[in-house]
């Protein structure tokens, strides 16, 4: 039973990692944003 749980958790973690990598790569391809030069940051 616990081996099955471990296998499921492993598959879930691998799937999450894949989802995340896709999201990160998509985010890096977004259009550049012109940000104010002297701002500390934005909310």
């Amino acid at each position, binding site marked *: 039973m616990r081996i099955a749980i471990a296998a499921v958790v492993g598959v879930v973690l691998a799937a999450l990692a894949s989802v995340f990598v896709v999201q990160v790569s998509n985010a890096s391809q977004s259009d550049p944003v012109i940000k104010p030069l*002297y701002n500390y*940051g*934005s909310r």
Partner: protein
Amino acid sequence: MMGRARHGVAAFTGLVLGLLAIGPGLAPGFVLSFDMVFVPDPAFSRMTFGLTGTVPRHVPSDAFVTALATVLPADAVQKLVLLAIFVMACTAAASLVPSERLAPRLAAGVLYAWNPFVAERLLLGHWAFLLGYAALPWVVGAAARAGEAGGGRRLVRALIPAAIGGFAAIAISALTALAIAAAGRERGRSLGRTAVALVVLSLPWLVTGWLRPAGMPGDTVGVEAFAARADTPFGALGSLFLLGGAWNRETVPAGYGAPVTAFAWLLVVVAAVVAYGWWCRTAWARGVALAAGAGFVLAALGAVVPWLLRWAIGLWPGFAVLRDGQQYVAPLAVLVAVGLGVLVERVMRVDTARTDTAGAALAIFAILAPVVLLPSLAWGAAGRLKAVDYPAAWAAGRKIIEADTVPGDVLVLPWATYRSYSWNGGRTSLDALPRYLGRRVIVSDAVMIGSLTIRAEDPRARRLDEVVRAGGPLTEGLRAAGIRYVALDAETSAANPARGRLAGADPVLDQPDLVLYRIEAPVKAEDGGAPVWSAVLAWSIVMGVILWSFFVPASTLSAYFPRRPRRRRTP
């Protein structure tokens, strides 16, 4: 695994995490990110010790870096400090897990060193604050035993990273240590020793800040600007619970907060908190829970009841320390890390009579989960922490100023605190000239966040604000204010109208990365900071107490209270 070896494994794991996180920032050069500015060959000055009348947020961290840079290259000092944060965080959190097994300790260490809190504060450049965060689990251990013989000395040693970090690092350490002292045995003695240790180690910034003639700043605009914000689908409070929620949208790691991974991270955090509540019932564990709860409330104030915080700051400006509330989630990070460690311990404890492959596999997954769910912290937060070299024009400017024997200060234009230097890839950072140049450098320290502006705190900058913003000729006004040089480190083209306002000043350097004008015969001007004697006294006391904590025996009675075996680091 027993003895020092298990601490060694945790330290090595922390080092690997640090190498992974800093990535390209480890190349030769300097990483400039928001408030993190390191410069080559930093020199001790009145600013280093908070004696220029500015708010001493950089005290004593700048002095620590400057001292280290006398024996190491300054860029190496920066990398050393950043890696030390990860090594300390992993080692300290691992040492707090009540388990003899390695896996539970590593699970806690990895989560504590690799989570949204660390990622956002690192990108925000709060390295000094992270020193205190990294050592917080050690503070937990020391505070839990503060009432014992030698407890005061142990607590002082545990607080040294926070003391180096300065105000914010001490604030989270104080919250945690006082809660633990209050929840433990020998409450009176523990609270007394903890309070004294905290006050003494705060003296370098406490004294210079207190004696600052301009008084305590407390702009209520900052309440709205620095309040926690949602960086997950669970709102500001949910984001704080998940150890994120820092005010600055630009410091959220790429991809963090997406529904699927945010939900998975929520499951990890909830499981860890439940495990902590279920199995951690010792006095120090209650203290950590108390600190985590109080910290969460403080963190949420600006987002939930901003009017209350504004009212409190109006009552006493000191409450402005609660504006950037997300930093007070740090004790919750300790709780979550220990909770995950305890959960792994319980999973592994089941059926230990035989080799349990599934238990080991689950433990490995728990150790890896924080990294899998936040991979964009890796490689310099996906390329956002990069080492760069200062331009040659800056070195030329420094040479010119150092060779000049006429006293006078430096004013930096454009009149703003933060820059997006092209040579730093356009990434936001504090203006680096105040640390780069040996003279007193005046920049406008008013902070712009979106459409909000938090007014300047440096009295010299406030006095010069009218002159600079007036739009007319600058030279005579700056001469009267004691300015010897005007430096333009952005918008250096000939079309910059600021150049036309400097008629009568001599251009001594004109390069794309730095333009320098010299003003003849500036009037002598005083900063009006705290007196030097106050800093000398504060530093003498702090250094004396730190030396005492290492070298002086606890008391003549210490022989009757044998120290616990070294391997028992868990309080």
